[in-house]
C-alpha cells in the first residue's frame, strides 16, 4: 500500500510540474502526457502550385520527399515508391512545354476511399487523405481508382524507414501532405525545398482560413485543378496550366 501511495504522490507532483512547463516532458511518466487536439475539422490543407515558376530540370521537391519519407528505391523506376513526381506537359498545337509536380491531390471526395474494401484508405478531418497501413491488405484497388496515379505499392521488404513514415512490404502508400510536419505546425518537405532550392512555386496553407495566403490567392487569382471535371474536389490547385 505504501508503494501505491508513493507512486500516486509522485504522479501528482509530476502533473504539477507539467502545468508549469508543458514543453519539458520528454520521457514522461503517466500523468504528464498532453496529447494534441488532433486534426481540426475546420481546416482544409491544400497546395497552390505556380507552374510558370517550376523549372523543367528541377527535382528539389521530389528529392526532398524521398529524403523526408525515407523512400530508398531499388533502382526500378516503374515500381519504386514515389509520393511526388514531375510531369512534363506539351501543348501539341503550340509546342509549348512546361513541367509540374503531381502528388496525391487530397480530394474532398477521394475515389480511393470509396473503393477501399477494408477502410484503410481514409480522409482525416482536416482533409488529408492517408492509407492506414495497419489494415491495408495490399489489394491496390485504390491505385486503380486514383485518377492522378498518386499511389505506390511497396513490393519488397523495406529497411531504414523514417520513424515518422513507417512503411513495409505489401501496403499501398502515398503523399501524406507531410501530416507529421503539419501536425507539428510546419509545412510539407516539398514546399520547404521548393522555397529554399527551387523557385518557390509551391504554397501550402489552409484553404478554409480566409486570412491565409493560399485562401486569399485562390479567391483573387485564376487557379485550376487537374481533371476538375471528375468532381472529386482536389485540395491541390495549379496556376499556369
Amino acid at each position: 500500500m505504501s508503494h501505491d501511495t508513493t507512486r500516486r504522490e509522485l504522479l501528482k507532483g509530476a502533473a504539477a510540474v507539467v502545468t508549469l512547463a508543458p514543453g519539458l516532458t520528454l520521457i514522461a511518466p503517466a500523468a504528464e502526457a498532453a496529447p494534441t487536439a488532433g486534426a481540426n475539422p475546420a481546416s482544409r490543407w491544400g497546395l497552390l502550385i505556380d507552374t510558370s515558376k517550376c523549372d523543367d530540370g528541377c527535382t528539389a521537391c521530389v528529392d526532398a520527399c524521398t529524403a523526408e519519407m525515407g523512400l530508398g528505391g531499388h533502382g526500378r523506376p516503374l515500381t519504386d515508391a514515389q509520393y511526388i513526381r514531375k510531369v512534363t506537359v506539351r501543348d501539341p498545337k503550340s509546342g509549348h512545354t512546361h513541367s509540374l509536380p503531381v502528388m496525391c491531390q487530397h480530394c474532398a471526395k477521394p475515389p480511393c476511399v470509396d473503393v477501399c474494401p477494408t477502410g484503410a484508405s481514409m480522409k482525416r478531418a482536416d482533409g488529408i487523405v492517408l492509407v492506414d497501413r495497419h489494415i491495408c491488405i495490399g489489394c491496390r484497388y485504390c491505385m486503380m481508382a486514383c485518377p492522378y496515379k498518386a499511389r505506390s505499392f511497396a513490393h519488397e521488404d523495406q529497411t531504414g524507414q523514417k520513424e515518422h513514415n513507417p512503411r513495409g512490404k505489401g501496403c499501398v502508400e502515398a503523399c501524406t501532405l507531410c501530416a507529421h510536419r503539419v501536425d507539428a505546425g510546419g509545412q510539407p518537405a516539398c514546399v520547404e525545398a521548393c522555397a529554399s532550392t527551387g523557385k518557390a512555386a509551391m504554397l501550402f496553407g489552409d484553404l478554409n482560413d480566409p486570412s491565409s495566403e493560399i485562401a486569399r490567392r485562390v479567391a483573387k487569382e485564376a487557379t485550376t485543378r487537374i481533371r476538375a471535371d471528375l468532381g472529386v474536389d482536389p485540395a491541390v490547385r495549379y496556376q499556369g496550366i
Partner: protein
Amino acid sequence: MKGLVLSALMGIAALAAVLVGPGPATAGDLSPAVPHAKGSQCVEDPAVMRRNHMDFLKHQRDETLRKGIRGAKHSLKDCVTCHVQNGKDGKPLPVNAEGQFCESCHSYAAVSIDCFQCHATVPGTEKTASR
C-alpha cells in the same frame, strides 16, 4: 545388488545437482535478460505494461493516424527512444535485434513482433526527432 542400485541413484542425484546448478537461487530466475531503459520510470507500471502494451499501442496508433492526435503517452516512438541500447560503436542497436528489449521478451514468450516490418527500430536523428 542393493549397494549397486544405491550408488547408481547417488550418481544420478549428483548429475542432476550439476545440471540444475547451485540450488534454488537460480531456479526462479528463468526470465529473459531485458536491457535497462534510459528513463527512470515507464509510462505505466511495468506489470501493466508487460500485460497490456500491445493494447495501448493499438489504441493509440488509431488515434494518431486517423485523428491526428499526437504526443499521447503510449507511443511506439517513445518506447524505442527510451529502450534502445547503443552498440560498441556508439550507434543504436535495433530494438528487435537479438538480446535487445523487444526481442528478448518476445523470443522468451514465443510471440512474433509485427511492428518492425514497417516501423523504425532505432530513434530518428536529431533533425527528425525534433518534429
